[in-house]
C-alpha cells in the first residue's frame, strides 16, 4: 500500500482572522439592498490572499469557501456543525459563522489543497 503524503500546514492565525473578517464583510455586502460595488473590493482582497500572500514560494495561497445552502452529512469533516431545529435527516447548512479556508500549493504539476480552517456552521433538516 502506498502512503499518501500528509501535509500539515500552520498558517498564522492572524491570516485566518483576517480572512474571516473579509468573509463577514462579504456576507454583509450581499445583504445590502442598495446598489454598490463592494463585492469588487472583496474579490480584489480574495485575489490578494490567493495570489500575493505567499508569492515566490510554491504556495498558491489561501482561498475560502462559503458552504451556505449545501447539504450536510456526518462525513463532512470540512465543517464543524451544530444541528438546530428538530430532525437529523436531510440536513442543510443554514448559517455559516466561519467559512472553510483552504491553503493551496503546487505539488509538481498538481494543485493541492489543505483545509486550514473548517467552517463553523449551523445546520437544519430540510424536512423540518
Amino acid at each position, binding site marked *: *500500500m*502506498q*502512503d*499518501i503524503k*500528509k*501535509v500539515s500546514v500552520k498558517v498564522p492565525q492572524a491570516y485566518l482572522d483576517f480572512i474571516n473578517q473579509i468573509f463577514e464583510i462579504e456576507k454583509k455586502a450581499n445583504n445590502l439592498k442598495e446598489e454598490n*460595488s463592494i463585492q*469588487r473590493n472583496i*474579490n*480584489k482582497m*480574495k*485575489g490578494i490572499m*490567493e*495570489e500575493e500572500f505567499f508569492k*515566490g514560494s510554491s504556495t498558491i495561497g489561501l482561498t475560502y469557501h462559503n458552504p451556505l445552502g449545501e447539504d450536510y452529512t*456526518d*462525513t*463532512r*469533516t*470540512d465543517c*464543524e*456543525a*451544530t*444541528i*438546530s*431545529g*428538530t*430532525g*437529523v435527516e436531510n440536513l442543510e447548512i*443554514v*448559517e455559516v*459563522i466561519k467559512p*472553510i479556508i*483552504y491553503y*493551496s500549493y503546487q*505539488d509538481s504539476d*498538481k*494543485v*493541492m*489543497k*489543505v*483545509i*486550514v*480552517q*473548517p467552517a*463553523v456552521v*449551523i445546520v*437544519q433538516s430540510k424536512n*423540518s
Partner: protein
Amino acid sequence: MENTINFGIDLGTTNSAIAKFIKGEVIIFSNPQDYGRNTLPSVVSYKKDKIIVGNKAKEFLEKDPKSVVGVFKRKMGTAESFKIKSITESKTPIELSAQVLKELKTFVNTGDTLDAVVVTIPASFDTIQSNATKEAGIQAGFKQVVLLQEPIAASLAYANMKKEREMKDGQWLVYDLGGGTFDVALIQIKDGEMKVLDHEGDNFLGGADFDQMVVEKFVIPKICEEYNFTNLEDEMKSASGKFNAKYYVLLRRAEEAKITLSSKTSAEIVVDGFEDEDGNEVDMEITITRSEFNDLIKSNIDGTIEMIKQILTRNSLKPSDLQFNLMVGGSTYIPYVRSRVEEVLQIPVNCEIDPTTAVAVGAAYYAATKPKELEKSAEKKQTSISIKTSYNKASKEKDELFSARVTGKTDGLSYRITRQDGGFDSGLKKLTERISEDLPLVDGAFNFFSFVVYDSQNNIVETDIEPIGINSGFGISGQPIPEDICLEVDDYDNPGKTRLKPIFFKNSILPLRSQAISFPLNKGLIKGNDDDFIYINVLEGSHLALPEANKGIGFMEIRGTQIKRDIAKGSDIEITISISESRDITISVYLNMADQEFKQTFNPKERHTPVEFLKEQVEELSEKLDLEIEEATEKEDFETASALSKLKKEMESVSDETEGLTSDDVTDKRYQLEDKKRKIAQEIDSATKNKRIQQVKAHYFETKDECEKMLDENGNDHERKTFNDIVAQESAFFATNSPLKIQEKSDELHSIISRIRWRTPDFLVGIFKWCRDNQTRMNDQAQAKSLVDAGAFAIESRNWERLAEINSGLLNLLPRGAEKEATTRIGFGL
C-alpha cells in the same frame, strides 16, 4: 521493539487524547480528522453501515440521542447499556469506550503497533469501574492495559515538566474543570509514593454551561432591551422555535467571547441576521466585560470551592498544609476561576502545565516507566486482501462514484476512506466484497483519498490498494484550452516594447474566470479627449513568445470620450477575463477612479481586429525586422541575417496591403493580414531566439556572480536558500529555451541583491547622499528637510535600519516618473 509501554491515553468523559513518550519527551498525537486539535470527543454514533467516533458523532448527540451516545463513562461498571435504534442493538459502556480507544489508535502516525497502553481513570472509579475500563482496553485490541488515576497523571505531567522526578513529601490539590465535568482530588506524596487521598466532583458542570449562561442571562436580555420580542428566549431554545438556529450561533459567539476574555478585559458579541416583531433588522454589537462574565459564573465557581472545603474538613487540613492547587481542564484558562479559587482558599494555584493535555501527557510519562509484559509470540497477522478499484481519475462533478472489489477474507474487517485535505471521512464501515462510495471533491484541486482497512481492533491491515487520486477540473466533460491566454502589457524592462502576462495556462479547463488583475495606469486619460486611450489586448499562444507572434482573440480600447471623469496616472485599472465553455471571451475592465466598468464579449468566430491597431503593429514589426537584420549583419551572423532577409519581402507586401486598408473595411482582409503578420513575427522570433537566449544567459550569469559575492559578504540564511533554490533549477529553466523564463530568474536574483544592498551601510549612505543632492526637486520641502536631518543623525549613530526607512521616505518624495519614464503603449504594464 520498545521495552516500556510508552503510550498513554486520557479516556475522558467528554474528550479523550493519546500521547507517547519518545526519547525523554512526550508528544501528543493530533486528531487527523479534526484540524488543529489533539483531542477526540468521547462520543460514538452508530449508523446502519458505519460507526463514527468523535466530533462528527458529537454534532448529532443532542438531536439524535437514539443513535449517538456520549458521557457513557459515567455508566462504566454498571449493568446499564444503551439501546441503539439504527442498528437495533444495545451497546455497553465498555463497548463504547473500546470504540473511543480504537479511534485513538488511528491518531498514531509513528508506525508503532499498539499492544500496551496506560489508560487514565477518574479518582472516583471503584474496582468494578476500573476493571470495566481495563476490559474496554482489551476489547480495543491492547494486550496489556495499565490504569492510572487522572489527578495522579496530571501531577506527573507537572513533576516532569519541572524535571523533579523526586517530588517533596507533601499534599496538593488537582482542580480539573473541563468542558462538561468538574473533579477535584487531594494528592499526597510520601516516601516517593503518590496517591489520591480524597476527591469530589460534579458531573454536570463545565465550560459549556458558562457559554449558555452568557447567552441566556446576558445576551438575550440585551437584545430584548433594544428590540421588540415577546418570548425570544423560548423561540431560541426550543427546537421548533423560530430562532433556534440563531441560538446556536450565539452559543458559538459566546464561546469565542469567553476565550477572548481570558486574555482581554472585554469582548464583543455580534448579534445580527434576523428581524424583531416590528420588522426591524437586529444588528448590534454587545460588549461583555470580564467582570460581567465573572459575575455570571461566580456561583458555579463558588460551588467548586465548597467541594474543596469539604475535602479539607474531612481530612482535617488547613489551606496552608497544601503546597499548591494544580489547574487542569480547559475551563481553568478562565482568569476568574484561577483568581477566585486562590483568593477564597488561600492556596496558591499552579497553572504551569497545559490544562487540556496534562492527563494524557502524565499517562505517557507513567507509561515510559512501565515495562511491557507481553509474550514475545506477537507475530504479525498475515492477511491477504487485494482491492481492485474503479473510478474516474478526473471529474467536474461535485462528487465522484468510487467502487472497489475486494478479494480475500473480509470477515471482521472494516474500511475507512478519508480525503487528504481533511474535509471528508467516511467513518468506519464494514468491509464487503463490493464497495461503492460517493467521494466529494474539492473544486479546482487534485483530490487524494486514502482507503485504509482495519481489523476488528483497529489495527491497520496491509492491502495492495494505491492512493485514490481524482483531479477535479480535468473532467471529460470540460475542454482544455489549447494555448495560453495572455494579456499584453507594457514591458517596463524594455521601454517601448510590450510583453505577455499569462492569464490562463494551456490545458486549463473551460469555463475559466480570472481573478481581477489590477495595474496602476502609466498614463492619464482626460475626459472627452479622443486621443487618450488604453488598450486591452487578449492573445492566444505561448506566454513566453513575443506578443506579436500570438493570435489576438479579444481587443478593447477605452478612450477619453468614454469616461465619466478624468483618470489620473497611477490610479488602478482592474481587468477580469473569462472564457465560457463555448469559448466566448468576456473582458471586463473597471476603472477605480471613475467607478466605471466596461465589458465586452468576443466570439473568436468574429475576430476583432481594428485596422488602426493592426497598422500600428505591422509598422512596428517592420521596423523591428529592419533592426534585427542590421544587428545580425553587424555581428556577422550571416545565417540569421539571411533568414531574416527572406522575410523582408513578405513584410513589405503585408505593410503595403495594410496601408491600403480603410478603417471601415468590411472584408476578411484585415484578418488575413493579421495572420500573415503573426506568422512573420513567429519566424522573426524563432530566427532571433538564439541571440536573445545568449543575451539573457550572459546577463543571468553576471547577476548570479554578483549575487553570490553579495551573499558571501552580507547574505543571511534565508537569502542563501533562495539563491541555492534558483541555482538548483538552472538546468530546468535553461532547457525551456525561453528568454523570458531565464530573465525571470535573473530578476529573482536581482531582488536578492537589492534586499542585501538595502542593509549595506555603504549603499544606504550612497542613496542618502544622492537623495540629499536632489533635495531641491522633492515634492514636500519641509518633510524632505526633516528626513535629511534625520538621515544625517542616523548615519552618525550608525542606525542603518532607520537610514533605510529614511531613504525610502526620501525616494517617495521625488516627483513621479523622475526615476524611470514608463512606456505607455498599452497603458499599464509590468
